[in-house]
């Protein structure tokens, strides 16, 4: 537990202010913000990002190099709108990394839906020969096109790659190629379908879940999913863990702590 937080001074969960050194536009609604910071990070972990006087939210790290880390942010609500308005030289607070990452294995496949691709990007960097499936609503939302070669793309409207869902595309590919493991992140109904499909082919999945979070270190209970704390027991869960989590794919938890059905897409 301590080893993952070596970059913090002690075991103290407080944000450290870091300066934005570069910004890259990944798509019309996604920007990657780069920071000069050394951090011990396993793909699949996350950090809490603080914008003073505004709010604090969990984000995965989508780039990691020697002294550089990047966070890809989809403009979606009030917090990410302000985040997108930040310029190089501005500072934000970061604490973490938190949670349990992916167990990486060769001969595997990643399946990313939308901004979920951000959490798989460092998996791909670590396992360069991995099969990559990326799905988006349309061609303009496809991420990291220059960064990763040989991606198998799909769009809902068919404007790029396969016309259909990541699940359909994965099904086609699995028929021809066997994988040790499938790593996936994206909208939860998609994740659920990926896991169900992989069960049919007897392939283990590791799934990164998203829940509203508060503490990030396992005390408040806000991010519960069937008794599992997504912040510390996850955010990555294996097929066998998910089999015991009845809420997976069905129920999420709101800011008030109410368990509600996930909107089916």
């Amino acid at each position: 537990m301590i080893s993952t937080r070596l970059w913090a001074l002690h075991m103290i969960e407080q944000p450290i202010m870091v300066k934005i050194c570069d910004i890259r536009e990944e798509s019309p609604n996604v920007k990657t913000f780069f920071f000069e910071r050394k951090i011990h990070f396993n793909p699949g972990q996350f950090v809490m990002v603080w914008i003073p006087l505004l709010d604090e939210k969990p984000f995965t790290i989508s780039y990691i190099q020697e002294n550089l880390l990047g966070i890809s942010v989809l403009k979606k609500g009030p917090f990410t709108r302000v985040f997108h308005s930040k310029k190089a030289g501005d500072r934000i607070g970061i604490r973490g990394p938190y949670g349990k990452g992916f167990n990486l294995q060769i001969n595997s496949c990643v399946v990313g839906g939308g901004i979920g691709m951000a959490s798989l990007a460092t998996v791909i960097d670590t396992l360069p020969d991995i099969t990559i499936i990326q799905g988006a609503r349309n061609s303009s939302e496809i991420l990291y096109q220059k960064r990763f070669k040989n991606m198998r793309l799909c769009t809902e409207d068919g404007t790029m790659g396969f016309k259909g869902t990541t699940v359909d595309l994965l099904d086609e590919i699995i028929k021809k190629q066997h994988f040790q493991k499938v790593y996936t992140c994206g909208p939860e109904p998609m994740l659920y379908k990926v896991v169900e499909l992989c069960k049919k082919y007897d392939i283990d999945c590791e799934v990164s879940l998203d829940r509203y979070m508060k503490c990030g270190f396992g005390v408040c209970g806000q991010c519960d999913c069937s008794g599992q704390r997504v912040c510390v027991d996850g955010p990555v869960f294996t097929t066998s863990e998910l089999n015991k989590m009845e809420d997976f794919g069905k129920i999420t938890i709101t800011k008030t702590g109410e368990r509600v059905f996930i909107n089916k897409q």
Partner: protein
Amino acid sequence: MSKVNVSVTLCNIKLNNPTISASGILGTTRALLKRVAENGAGAVTIKSISREPREGHKNPTVITFEAGMLNAVGYSNPGVDKAAREFINLQDVGVPVIASVVGTHKDDFVRVIEGLSGTEFSAIEIPLSCPHTPGFGLLAGQGTPQATFDITSEVRRVTSLPIFIKLSPNISEICTVAKAAEDAGANAITAVNSMGPGMIINIEAQKPILSFQVGGVTGDALRPIAVRCIYDLYKAIKIPVIGVGGVSTGRHAIEMMMAGASAVGIGTGVYYRGIDVFKKVCEEMILWMQENSIDDINKIVGAAHD
């Protein structure tokens, strides 16, 4: 190794061991309460429920520092109607479940308790001592002897379950407030809530970190103050005391029981030692008892008194 007894009886509620998960810690869902019970808690407490749903304060709501934790969550909860649906079939949890009920007005407490009447809670805890949520606890003047007496009396009128009144360590007259609760029919005192409020400033941002700016202090920094409060309360009142504040080891729990606690709440300890802190604390208590030839945990309650 000799066999020792760590089970306690608190207001006729039998606990396999004296550890209780404190309110606000892992108490959002029934599934999580069950997990806490599986990790050794003798009883569990839900996150406080108010009449209406509340989103609470914005993040950051919980941070830590060298000597504990600072939080201002702001009573986020789904409101009594939704909570009554979440906290059903509580026997599945496997240990007694304590409801925590908050309100702004006397009527709110009544309405929440009535709303939870179809559930199987073993006791009701009423915190009149939150230092960081407008409209509740200290910020609503609920920590005075008179307000405590009035609210406790009102709650007593509508429930036959044991009532635990949770008090603040900030007030100098904690024993007077506890007596007011006892006189109004409370069955136990939970001592203590978080202290403060305190503030932590990020010096690079030049701003307080918590969105609410201030928050309640818990953990190691709170423990000596909690122990003193429990010690004083043990002398002043007849009803049992549930000790809470900075317990994360078996030694801490024993210290609190020697001060006079009949059971011990654990909150911030989950951060220090993980979700199985309850199991660890119990194992350490048992080991200490064996080393010190004490066969029953109940024998040490109040042992620090003359």
